[in-house]
Structure formats: structure tokens, C-alpha cells
């Protein structure tokens, strides 16, 4: 009797997408933390609060596909990213960390997603698929 494996394949692909998104988010999250480590100005007021407040959501699905959110609950980070009238310096201050880092790491994010996705789908650690998308590929 024929039995379709489509539900299992779909389930596996969804799980692979979620795992890939987690990997891509980790790339961006680490890069943002690295950027925030030195603070926004002189570095004299760095407490680590901004770095420790970088977080990501669970992967989700909507009508456009799977996605994951990386962000922070700290409004200070938003103010520095988008700019604000600073009460201490008395002028408009803006130091972007998040958006430039997102665009700068897009290739690494994509590579991480592809690498994990392929492994999840059975590409295998030593197979072509696992190496083709890796930035560390010796090819």
C-alpha cells in the first residue's frame, strides 16, 4: 500500500528551517554583541547591560515563511541606533550598531543557515552540501 512521506518531509523541512534560523540569528547576535562591547562613545560608561540584553526569539512561521527576531528590550539601544537628543551632551547623538552589523553579516548569516539546513536534511557532515555553503570551506 502506498503511503506518502510528504508530511514527514514537510515536518523535517520546517524543523531544518527553524534550526537554520537559529544558526543565522546566532551569527548576527554574536556580531552585535561584539559591536556593543565597547559602548557607544568613549567606552567609559560600559556596564555590559547592552550586551547582555541582546536576545533572539523562537523561530516562527507566518504567511511569508519562517522567521526569527533578534533584538533587545533596552530602549537605550533603540535611542542610540535611531538617534536621540542627549541630555548630557546637549546635542543629537546617533551611533548605529545593529543595522550596519546586520547588513555586514548577511553572507555569514546565509552561510550558517544553509550549512545547518543541509545537515538537518541529511546532507551529512562530510558531504558536499555541508561544505558548499560554509565560509570555512577549503575550496
Amino acid at each position, binding site marked *: 500500500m502506498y503511503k506518502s512521506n510528504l508530511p514527514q518531509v514537510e515536518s523535517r523541512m520546517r524543523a531544518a528551517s527553524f534550526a537554520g534560523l537559529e544558526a543565522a540569528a546566532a551569527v548576527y547576535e554574536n556580531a552585535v554583541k561584539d559591536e556593543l562591547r565597547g559602548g557607544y562613545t568613549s567606552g567609559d560608561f560600559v556596564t555590559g547591560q547592552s550586551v547582555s540584553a541582546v536576545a533572539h526569539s523562537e523561530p516562527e512561521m507566518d504567511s511569508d515563511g519562517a522567521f526569527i527576531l533578534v533584538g533587545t528590550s533596552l*530602549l537605550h539601544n533603540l535611542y542610540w541606533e535611531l538617534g*536621540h537628543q542627549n541630555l548630557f551632551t546637549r546635542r543629537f547623538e546617533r551611533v548605529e550598531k545593529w543595522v550596519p552589523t546586520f547588513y555586514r553579516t548577511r553572507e555569514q548569516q546565509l552561510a550558517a543557515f544553509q550549512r545547518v539546513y543541509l545537515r538537518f536534511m541529511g546532507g551529512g557532515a562530510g558531504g558536499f552540501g555541508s561544505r558548499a555553503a560554509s565560509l570555512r570551506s577549503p575550496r
Partner: protein
Amino acid sequence: MANTGSWGGVEQLIRQRLLTFVSSTGGGTLAQRLGSTSSGSGADGKLFLDQAPDNVTGFWAVLRIITAPPNGADGRLMIKGTAELMIHGKPRAVASTVKGMATLVSEAWLEWSHTEVGGHLSAMDATPSPGLVPYTADPADRELVTYRMLLDFRCTPQFLLKYAA
């Protein structure tokens, strides 16, 4: 007249569109709503490119292109870019006026396209992101009102298209 012969030209085209657009229901252009400076780059409307002067007052806006992958698409000739528009006002009582300007920008960006010999620029989505910035706590000055929008566009600029086979 600005054209797509350079990135500066692309920015000017977007700037001119936003400053001079008139809503079908009237209400004044963005240039009229923002006001202007007596001289300098804000003389035709206080929509500055990249950075505003430190001494700017009243309403003002800042436009810049935040991403435009240099490798392009469509045979590497078309660029899918995003411009960022920040509309500012002070004090907080002018928030509704700032939101009105953001609405006007959404209208101006709807289905706009610029075509020229050897170049093209089309507006895509206008996304409030996050819209009105929630300045609710120190050290931000809570009297500053900021509305942020992301303006997606597609551009086949002269400076790339001239290399088309």
C-alpha cells in the same frame, strides 16, 4: 535636473520627490510643512541628506540610503535599495504634525517612478520602522519627536546601465 548618473543624483531624485509631492487632498508639500533655511542645503526644504546641521530648529528631516547592494540584480544592473527617512520635530506637542508628514511621504512613495534615458528609479514599499520612536525615558530628551520610515526602491541607474551589453 538630477538623474541616476550617480548615487548623489539618486538621492536628489528621492529628495525632490518627497519635498514637492502634493497630496490629492491638498495640505501643502513636505517642503512647506518642514519649512526652509535662509540659505544652504535646507533652502528648498529642511530635508537634509545624511546629517542635519547641529543648530536646526522646528521641523526637519534626514534622508540617506542605508543599503544598496553593489552587486545588484537583474544582470547586476538593477539595485534593490532602502532609503531611511527620519522626520524630526520639537516639542512633543507637534507629534501629530510629524505623523501628518509621514502620511504625506507614504502617499508620495506610492507607485512613484522616475524614468529617463538610460536610467530608472521606482518606489516600492514605505514602511514605518518603528514609526514614532518611543522616547519615554532618560537620557533621551522626551520632547524630541522622531518618525522613522524605510523607503524601499528599485533602481537601474545610468552609471550601471551604460555597461549593459
